[in-house]
Every structure is written in structure tokens, then in C-alpha cells.
């Protein structure tokens, strides 16, 4: 054994009925108990200690019991895989145990060699391993704050404008925040809305109906398709999926006209079907759901099969609850696009138009309605953001509890 690379503790060991005073040396591979005359009485290689498994699998401590030929038992508590001491006091009479953790020992050795030693940093916040330096943390927070400000700027600007009184709205150069915030714009908006040709509640009902039904239908239809595409290998499945992914990349502008022709052939123009059916089949939702469902262990589904659950049952009560983050995200996308859909091409009766369309008409009122237009921007933005915030907290909650992964 080399001179330095060991941890020393002195005391008395009891071997059977014999008591021997001596020293326990432990190094990286084994622990040796020596008498005062430096005769090794007992050698315990760590490799033979099978119950160190706990440490090998990431635990921090492990109790090791060794049985000798003469039936005497020794218990060691290994802490962090590096500290070795006898945890039964009576074996080590009189003297307190001298133990070093391996890190301390290595540091002592480094000091002996005259190397520079890094001090252990104490962290205020307990964080998981492996760690980032404090500097890195601060840097990232600062960067996030700066970029976050740049990202939030248009929102701040939009809300700020909506709260500006009329004279501030026309001030040049435009200020970001109002000096005398007022809700006049919103109350004006309410007045204008109350005077519309078609009752305003009608627009609102239309949009809520379209958004709700469209999102729900999309979620169910796309998830069902995504489920079989992700979890079963059936002829045509893969081809179908790659067609969907490819179709995602075709420019939406040129398909507008063929789409209109198809809808008029199906007699769907000026009905909500023209909005809902394409929304049901939006490729983004299918793509996203499928990608998430692939992460679910196949064993889970097989187990359910063995238990006699049908496909629909598996889909509804096993797969869907486990991909909640995915479907909440799909809801966000779908709500966002349906809510902002002004549907001017496929719907022409005024009573069927959407809220966004009505609000855009107010917005189009020109200079006279600048203040209301700013309020409209905020109103239109608010709903997707609220739904987003609500589902965000849902996502975080659900994922903390589910641990089913391959």
C-alpha cells in the first residue's frame, strides 16, 4: 500500500473473542486492519462486497456486513462510496473514528504535493447534479431577461397603446407606455359593438362555437389517427404519415383556390363545415400527437391488451391521459388558429361571420377609430393568451406526476 493513498483510523477490533488494538487502513480498493506491529490481520477487498450495489446504482450509502470464517460479523457503513468506517462503536473502543472522505483525502494529498487546491463552493440554492457554475447561471438569467424583454415588447406596446387616451395615440414618435392610462378605448369599443347591424353576441357565439367544436374535433380525430400510426405497424401507416409530413410543407397560398372549388362542389360554402372540416384534419396536430405517443412504452399497451381492453379503451383511458402535454399544446395551436380565423373567403352571410372579422371591420374604420383599433388588438390577443396560460400550468402539473416512460 502506498504511503498516502489511504485513510487511517485507529481503534480496537474484536475478532471472535480476541481484542486487538490496531489501525484500519482503507484505500481505494480495499480495507486492511493491522496490529500495532503492522501485521495485516484482516483484508477486505471492496470488490467482494456485493451489497455495494446500492452505491453502484446511485445511492449514497450502503451497509456492508462481512462474515469471517470464525463467524464474527463486521458491519461497515460506506458513505458516498468513499468513506469507510466501522459503525459499531464497541469494536472501536476509546478513540473517536478518524475518517476522511475521499475528496478530503485527495485534497490533503494535493496540498502535500504543493498543488493549487480549489475550495468547495457552497451553493445557496440546492441544485441537481451535474451543476452549472454560478456565473453560468447568472449569465443565463440575464440573457433570458434581456431576450424576454425583446420578446414581450410587442405585447407591452399593444397593451400600452390600448390604454392610451386619443391625444397620446397620435403623439409622434409613439411612446411605449401611456402617461395617462385610461379605459376609454375599451368602453368606446363596447358602444360601437352595441350598434352593429348583426347583434354583437352573434359574432361572439359564432367564434366560440367554431373554436370549441373545431378544437375538440381536431383533437379527437387527430389523436385517434396518431395513436394507430404511432403504436401499430400496419400496411400503409408509414406511407400515410410521411404524406402528412410532406403536405405540411406545401405553400398554403396556392391551395386556397382548389380548396374553394372543392368546398363549393361539396356545397359547404357559407356553412361552418367549410371552416371546421379542414381544421379537424390540420396536419400539425396529427404530427405532434404522433411524435409524443411514440414516447409511450409499447409494453403499456400490450399489458392493456392482455387485460382484455379494446383499442378504443386503450386509446381513451391509457394513451390519452399520458400524452396530456401534447394535447394541451395541440389545443393551443388549434384555438389560436381558429380564434384568429376571419373566414372571409368561405363564409359570406353576415350573421355567420366571426368575432375577429367584426373586430377587423371596426379596426378598418381608419383614423377615427384608432383608439378602438388598439383595444381590438388586445381583445383578440387576450383569449389565446389566457387559454395558453391556463393550459401551461396544466402541462407542468401533469408531467410532474406521470413517470411512465420506457
Amino acid at each position, binding site marked *: 500500500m502506498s504511503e498516502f493513498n489511504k485513510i487511517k483510523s485507529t481503534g480496537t477490533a474484536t475478532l471472535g473473542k480476541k481484542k486487538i488494538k490496531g489501525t484500519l487502513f482503507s484505500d481505494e480498493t480495499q480495507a486492511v486492519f493491522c496490529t500495532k506491529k503492522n501485521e495485516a490481520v484482516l483484508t477486505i477487498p471492496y470488490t467482494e462486497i456485493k451489497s455495494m450495489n446500492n452505491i*453502484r446504482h*446511485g445511492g449514497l450509502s450502503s451497509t456492508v456486513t462481512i462474515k469471517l470464517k470464525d463467524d464474527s460479523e463486521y458491519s461497515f457503513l460506506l458513505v458516498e462510496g468513499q468513506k469507510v468506517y466501522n459503525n459499531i462503536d464497541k469494536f472501536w473502543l476509546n478513540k473517536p473514528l478518524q475518517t476522511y472522505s475521499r475528496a478530503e483525502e485527495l485534497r490533503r494529498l494535493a496540498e502535500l504535493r504543493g498543488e493549487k487546491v480549489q475550495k468547495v463552493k457552497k451553493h445557496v440554492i440546492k441544485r*441537481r447534479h*451535474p451543476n*452549472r457554475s454560478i456565473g453560468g447561471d447568472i449569465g*443565463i438569467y440575464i440573457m*433570458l431577461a434581456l431576450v*424576454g424583454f*425583446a*420578446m*414581450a415588447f*410587442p*405585447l407591452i*406596446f*399593444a397593451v400600452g397603446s390600448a390604454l392610451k387616451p386619443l391625444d397620446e395615440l397620435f403623439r409622434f*414618435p*409613439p411612446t411605449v407606455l401611456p402617461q395617462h392610462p385610461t379605459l376609454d378605448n375599451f368602453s368606446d369599443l363596447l358602444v360601437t359593438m352595441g350598434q352593429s347591424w348583426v347583434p354583437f353576441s352573434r359574432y361572439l357565439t359564432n367564434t366560440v362555437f367554431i373554436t370549441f367544436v373545431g378544437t375538440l374535433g381536431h383533437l379527437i380525430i387527430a389523436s385517434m*389517427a396518431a*395513436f*394507430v400510426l404511432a403504436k401499430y405497424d*400496419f*400496411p400503409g*401507416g408509414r406511407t400515410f404519415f410521411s404524406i*402528412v409530413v*410532406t*403536405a*405540411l*410543407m*406545401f*405553400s*398554403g*397560398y*396556392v*391551395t386556397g*383556390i*382548389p380548396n374553394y372549388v*372543392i368546398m363549393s362542389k361539396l356545397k359547404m360554402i357559407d356553412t361552418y363545415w367549410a371552416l371546421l372540416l379542414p381544421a*379537424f384534419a390540420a*396536419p*400539425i396536430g*396529427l404530427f*405532434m400527437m404522433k*411524435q*409524443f405517443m411514440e414516447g409511450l412504452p409499447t409494453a403499456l399497451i400490450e399489458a392493456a391488451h392482455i387485460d382484455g381492453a379494446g*383499442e378504443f379503451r386503450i386509446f381513451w383511458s391509457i394513451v390519452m391521459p399520458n400524452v396530456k*402535454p*401534447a394535447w*394541451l399544446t395541440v389545443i393551443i*395551436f388549434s384555438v*389560436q388558429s381558429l380564434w384568429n380565423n376571419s373566414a372571409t373567403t368561405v363564409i359570406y352571410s353576415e350573421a355567420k361571420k366571426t368575432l375577429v372579422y367584426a373586430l377587423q371591420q371596426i379596426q378598418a374604420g381608419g383614423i377615427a377609430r384608432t383608439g378602438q383599433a388598439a383595444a381590438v388588438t388586445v381583445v383578440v*390577443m387576450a383569449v*389565446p*393568451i389566457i387559454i*395558453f*396560460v391556463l393550459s*401551461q*400550468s396544466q*402541462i*407542468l402539473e401533469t408531467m410532474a406526476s406521470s413517470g411512465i*416512460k420506457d
Partner: protein
Amino acid sequence: MNQVQSGSFAKRYLSMRSEKLGYGLSKAKRMKVCYLFLAPYAILFFTFFILPICTSIFYSFTYYNILEPARFVGLQNYINLILQDEVFLTSVKNTFVIAVITGPVGYILSFMFAWFINELPKWLRAVAVVIFYAPSIAGNAFTVFSIIFRGDAYGYLNSILLNFGFIDAPQLWLTNPASIMPVLIIVILWMSMGTGFLSFVAGFQGIDKSMYEAGYVDGIRNRWQELYYITLPSMKPMLLFGAVMSITSAFNVCDVPRALAGFPSTDYAARTVVTHLFDYGFSRFEMGYASAIATILFLVMILCKKVISAALEKVGT
């Protein structure tokens, strides 16, 4: 003896076949459910997505001005597009520059920010996600940039630069062909936290935390290793999703240049393939020609996606 053997062989063979057949039948039965699950989506998808796309591709071989019936012209649209349309070549160059810069950078940025945000405390994380996703929710919020980059001394950027004395006359950021592209790239990058970003956030939430502990025991030393060996491989599906999304948005840039740089822009400096398409399809009503542009763009994007998904296959191995 031989006969008996062969007879038993045939018997065994037949019983095996029938077993296999039975298995196949039961599989087919299960598959039938699969088709049933897929059917509603597939029918809608073929009607409202595949059919229009096929029709558009068909139009690309015709002269079609919406009013008259399409007249077949063969490859004439493509020939004109590549050999005669100089503006198209400018637009290809611009789109290429925008896609090469904003695609990968936007993709990496949205992944990085999703990664950083994921490690924030819970309440802060929700706020941060909303803030970073705000430009995408806020619809055409990028019009704010037309005030920032305004050409007179009242534009925010000009007034700041003038105050600090970096420039002595206001710059025409959005009309000077030299500065249009950098400005556009900045704005598009600012908007890049979109669909991909959200799916990354959700993907990070889905990673099993015990994988990190196990990885730590197996000798992972730092966050980069953790990222490469654990996080990225478990997020492969979302990475592919994000990649497809960022290809789509990088090549389909249209609204931003039209709103900021004007339509048409000075010297066609901000013309992209899709604004070119928009010009032909909706200002000149040459749908056949516009469809040809769309088809070419489509082919380029498919190629791009193939390359990226091949690269993603190698991550973490």
C-alpha cells in the same frame, strides 16, 4: 417410413401454415381497427389537403388565370421561371439566405431557450414560456418593427443612433436594399419561437427525471454530456417536429417582408419565393405560374427535410 415422415412433415407444415394464417387473420382483424381509427382523419385530410395540393401541381403545367379554364402548356411555366424570370432568381437567392440563416439559428435558439426555461423554478417557467411565445400569439405584432426601423429621425433605432452620434443622418433601414435583408433576418429570428419552441417545452417536460440520475451514476460529468446523451435522444420526435416546422417557416417567409419592406420592395431586395408566388397568384392572377413556383419550393423543402431527418437519426449515438 419415408412416407410417414413426409406425411408428418406436410401435416406439421400445414398446421404451421394454418397457425400463421390464423395469426395473420387475427392481426388483420386488429389492423381493421387501425384503419377504422385512421379513417376519419384520412378522409378529411385527403379531401382538404392532398386533393388541393395535387390540383395545384396539376395547375403548374397549365396556363390558368382563375377566370378561364386551365389550358395545358406542359413545362412552359417551369422553363419561363428558370430561364426568363430574373426576379425569381433574386427571390431564390433571398429565400436561400433567409432560410440558411434563420432556419438553423432559429431552431437552435428555440431549443436553447426551451432548455434554459425548463430549468427555471415552476412559476417563473410558466411566465417565461408565455413571454417567449408571445410574438407568435400576438399575430402580426411584428408591425411594431416598422416603427423601430422607421426611415426618419423619429424611428426608435434611428433616434437612438442619432442621439449617441453613431450616424449623422437617419438611415432608411427598410427601403435601402443593403439593409433590408439584415433587418428582415432579425425580425424573423425574433419570431422564431413558434410551434417548435412549444413542442420543445412540452418535450422537456416529458423526459423521465430518473434518466438523469442514472446518467449521473454512469459517469455523465456536465450538462453538455447530459444534453447530448440523455436529453437529445429522448426528445428525438420533438426535434424532428421542430425541424420540419422551422424548414416550413424558413422557406415560407412572406408576411414579414410584405409588411415591413413594402410590396414590391425596393429593387426587389426583399423579394422571397413566396412573395413572388403571391405576386403572380394574387396580383396578376397567373395561378399556373404561381403553382409552378409552389411546386419547386415544395421539392426543395422535401429535400431539405430528408437531409435533416437523416442528421437527426445520428444524434446521441
